[in-house]
């Protein structure tokens, strides 16, 4: 296994953002963004709690991490100060789950994050959203049937900003429009990684 190259700029920004914040909770830790975050924060954080869709061990840049399932009780015991939220089913999961389950699961994941804003010890939450949320904005409410991913991202962003503001929790939405990275989980779903995969495996794009 190779080590994913890390940007010095990103490492420095991460270090300054996490200075003096020993307890960090990562939601969706086993996915593309979660693993990327782990590679950036592991060396700066004394205490990490990693939550994913199921319990498992992952290795990121040669270092093993344990991912556990969500437990409200365990999260309360951990008392996170900073929450990094990457837990969301992207559009490609719609086919696997079907419309109703897809909507329900994503709303449950959203509700978990919103519930963290109520906890007195959470100082800040960073969540990753999508440009699809902007695309969905100002569309009619029935847009959820056309593009549940975008509509749900927009719905979540609004509630997230409202709830975190109400509880004086620092909140940040990082909206990904087009991104790349070595931890991409489904390379064929994205232009850059798909082209790279075609070039590396078949020498043709």
């Amino acid at each position, binding site marked *: *296994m190779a080590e994913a190259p890390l*940007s010095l700029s990103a490492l420095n920004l991460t270090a300054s953002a996490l200075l003096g914040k020993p307890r960090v909770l990562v939601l969706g830790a086993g996915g593309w963004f979660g693993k990327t975050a782990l590679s950036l924060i592991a060396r700066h954080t004394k205490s990490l709690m990693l939550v994913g869709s199921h319990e498992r061990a992952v290795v990121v840049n040669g270092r093993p991490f344990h991912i556990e399932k969500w437990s409200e009780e365990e999260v309360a015991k951990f008392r996170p100060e900073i929450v990094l939220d990457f837990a969301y089913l992207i559009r490609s999961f719609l086919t696997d789950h079907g419309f109703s389950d897809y909507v329900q699961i994503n709303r449950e994941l959203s509700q978990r994050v919103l519930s963290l804003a109520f906890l007195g010890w959470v100082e800040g939450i960073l969540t990753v959203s999508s440009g699809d949320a902007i695309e969905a904005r100002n569309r009619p409410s029935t847009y959820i049937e056309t593009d549940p991913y975008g509509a749900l991202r927009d719905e979540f962003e609004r509630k997230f900003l409202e709830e975190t503001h109400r509880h004086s929790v620092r909140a940040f939405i990082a909206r990904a*429009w087009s991104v790349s*990275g070595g931890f991409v989980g489904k390379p064929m779903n994205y232009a850059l990684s798909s*082209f790279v995969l075609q*070039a590396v495996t078949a020498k*043709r794009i």
Partner: protein
Amino acid sequence: MDGVTGELDSGGRLVEMTELALEIAAQVEGTNIVEKVPNRSEKDVQQYCSDNAGWEAQIEARNYLPASLSSQIANVITALRSPP
């Protein structure tokens, strides 16, 4: 940002698919580009991209050095050949 909440859209230079393919082919020796597609910017289609303004402002304010397209491609080539 108001000190409590903030939002940031990813940004960067717009790259057409054919240009992207050419950049990747330049880094993976012997790669052929089978089909060059017309540039989206030349067609009357909706563009899926941020306005880049917030991104540019934030990277300047924070003295952040974003990875170039070339180094992003190199990172993904390395990762897909040997997952991190």
